[in-house]
Structures are given as C-alpha cells and as structure tokens.
C-alpha cells in the first residue's frame, strides 16, 4: 500500500510515511524510531507532543483529564491516540532514538516509492 501522507518528526527532523488510520505513535514506531511513551492507550499522558502543522482527530476518545481542552486548543496532542488527517509535523518532547535501521529503511523506501508514483505522469 503506497503512503500518500507524511509525518515530519522534530527535533530529529526525519520524515516517515503515514498509513491510513495510524496514530502518530504507530507511524513513528513503524518507522523504526522510539521515544518516551507509556500505556499507548490514552490514559497516562506520557506520550504528549506538540503539533506544529497539520490536523489530527481522536477516533478513540481521550479523557479530558489526560489531555485537557486547553492543551488541545494549544495543539498539544496525545500521540498514541491522535490520528493525522493530513500531512503533519510533530515536535516530540522527549528524545527520539533510531532503534531499528531495518524498519527505518523500509519506511524511507516507501516514501521514495510514493514519490516515484506521484512523479509518473
């Protein structure tokens, strides 16, 4: 399946493909990277990040006690439950490490592949 959307992850400044329905966390992990996250189910708040550009939605509801209305208005996102609706740039609040060059490679090839298709007219 060709990715049509991308996510830019700061401050590491890498670009990864976004698969339909993936949360920000899922996209980052799929790309072979790791950062500080907790329950991965929207209850602990550990994986918060800041959305620099783009739009997200929460198909699975997140409690206001975990991500407050003020935070949402400030474009703070809960990365484990936030699903990008568009291309996104997200600024992580914790260190982001490349833990799987194998997965990262696959992700980058996917990006190149989708660019080739876009260019093929």
């Amino acid at each position, binding site marked *: 399946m060709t990715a049509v959307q991308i996510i830019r992850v700061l401050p590491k400044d890498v670009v990864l493909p976004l698969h339909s329905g993936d949360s920000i966390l899922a996209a980052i992990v799929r790309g072979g990277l790791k950062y500080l996250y907790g*329950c991965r*189910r929207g*209850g602990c708040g550990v994986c918060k990040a800041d959305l620099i550009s783009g739009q997200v939605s929460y198909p699975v509801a997140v409690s206001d006690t*975990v991500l407050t209305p003020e935070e949402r208005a400030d474009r703070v996102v809960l990365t484990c439950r936030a699903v990008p609706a568009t291309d996104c740039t997200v600024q992580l609040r914790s260190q982001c490490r490349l833990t799987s060059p194998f997965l990262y490679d696959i992700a980058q090839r996917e990006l190149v592949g989708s660019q080739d298709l876009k260019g093929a007219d």
Partner: protein
Amino acid sequence: MPVMRLGYVHVRVTDLDAAMNHYSNTLGMKVMHQEGGKVYLKSWDEQDHHSVVIEEGGVGLVKLGYKVTSSDDLAAFEKRIQQFGASTERMSSGENLKTGDGLRVVLPSEHVIELFTDMEYVGTETGTLNPDPWPRDSRGAAVHRLDHALVAADDPALVERFFSECLDFRPAERLVTDPSNPELIGTWMFCGQTPHDIAVIKGPNGKLHHFAYWLDDWNEILKAGDVFSMDDVSIDVGPTRHGITRGKTIYFFDPSGNRNEVFTGGYQTGPDFSTITWTADQVGKGIFYITRELNEAFTTVFT
C-alpha cells in the same frame, strides 16, 4: 480477626464497551450487572458478586474495597483509623451494589478505601460439590481472582504506617534508598498469607499503578500473553519474574490505559514473616529479576 483480602477495585474507563470487552473477553471475567454507566465483573474462582467495577468517564482509581470478617472488627478498625487521624465515613448497605455496610476511609495519599463485611454470595464457577478444577467454558486469560493493587503516594512511609497501625498489615518487602539512611520508596504489605494485598510506591498521590489478578503457574502466564497478543492488548513488561515477591508476571494496559497484571508464585507470609529489604541500587533486579532493568513505562505510567 485480620482484614481478609482485597475485595474489589473500582476504576474509571474512557470507553465502557472497550473496557467491558477487555475485562470480560480478554481476561475472562463474567459481567454480573450493568447499570448507570457502571459494569460489575467477577472472576471464575471468586465467591462474591463482583470484584471489579468499571465506570465510564476518565481513567484511574475510584476506590479499593477490603473485606473484613465482622461488624465488631469493623468497629475496632474504625476506632484505630480515627485515632490515626484519617477521615472516615460510614457507608450504608446498598450504597455499593450487592454490598453491605462498611467504612469509607481517605488515605493520607488521597486514595479512597472501603472496608466492608458483606457482599452477595454467588459462588465460584466450579462450585462446591465434586468440582472440576476449572470451568469448561472459560474465556481468554481466565483470571482466577483479584489478588492485589499497587498505588502511588508522595509519602509511602506514611501510608505504610496507616496500614500497619490501623489494619495490622505487615510489610513483606520494602524498597529503600540506602540501608544506612533508608528512605522508603516502596512497600509490599500483606494481611493474610500471600506476599501482598496492597503495595505503595513513591509517585503522585491518588494514582493507581496497577491491580493484579491471580493465575496458577507460568503456563497460564504464557497463555495469557498469547491471548493479549490476539486481542491487541498493550503490553508493559513480561512475561518475566519479579525479584520482589518472586512472582511471575505480565504487566499490561486496559483500553483506557489503566495498568493490569497477571501474577503467580510468590511465597507464604503470615504474622511471623521476616521482612525482605531491597536497596535502590538493585531496584532493576527487584522489579524485573531477569533483565535487571527498569523500563521507562513502569516508573512513569500512572492513571
């Protein structure tokens, strides 16, 4: 007589349907009653009407319920708790579904615990007449019963003192900073013969670290892990073993992010048990005996 056991855990969940699916289908609890945004669940080897209550809205702990033997015991505990200085109120029969009257206490750590004497008797799914060892139609991880809870407190020593002075709990294991000048980081306390019925670790007041269910052996732990994978359960750590309690374990999260545990093993405690001490420099081994490393989620995820 001593406090009997952890009788119930009442937690908040963001999505009631997803939580019901987790506790009922994945863990194998039986839905006993549904009403007013709350679902009441029971494990197959428990006798009382329910042991877990999930309530729609938010995440985290509402309260813990500990069963005591009699009204006389309850009155005696009440006196001691009031002497300790914790705030108490009497709860009447029926305030909690199928539960008799009791005492509600706010701990120094802001957690609410309830002491109760009576809950409607339903019986185990195997029964008391020529029983099978387990129920033929058990589902998922088929958790046997509620075992213990671990909560966070800004001052674990004060909460330890509460459970000790008011309710005769004793510490099986304690985690301290430096034995020569020990600050208490964690305490695992029992009221019966198991390694712990309540545990407290340093962390934000009022928060829940996890509550745990009993399984019989390492095979059941592995099977639970397989079920968790089939059901896309978020895993924290495991299967592995704790240094503290010797227990074999998997930590995982419900769909709202509340941490659960399946647990087995340990040792026998009782009134004359000699407390075990762990020092902070060995905390990795204490929590996760085999890898001897703490993972970040274990110390940062509370709900």
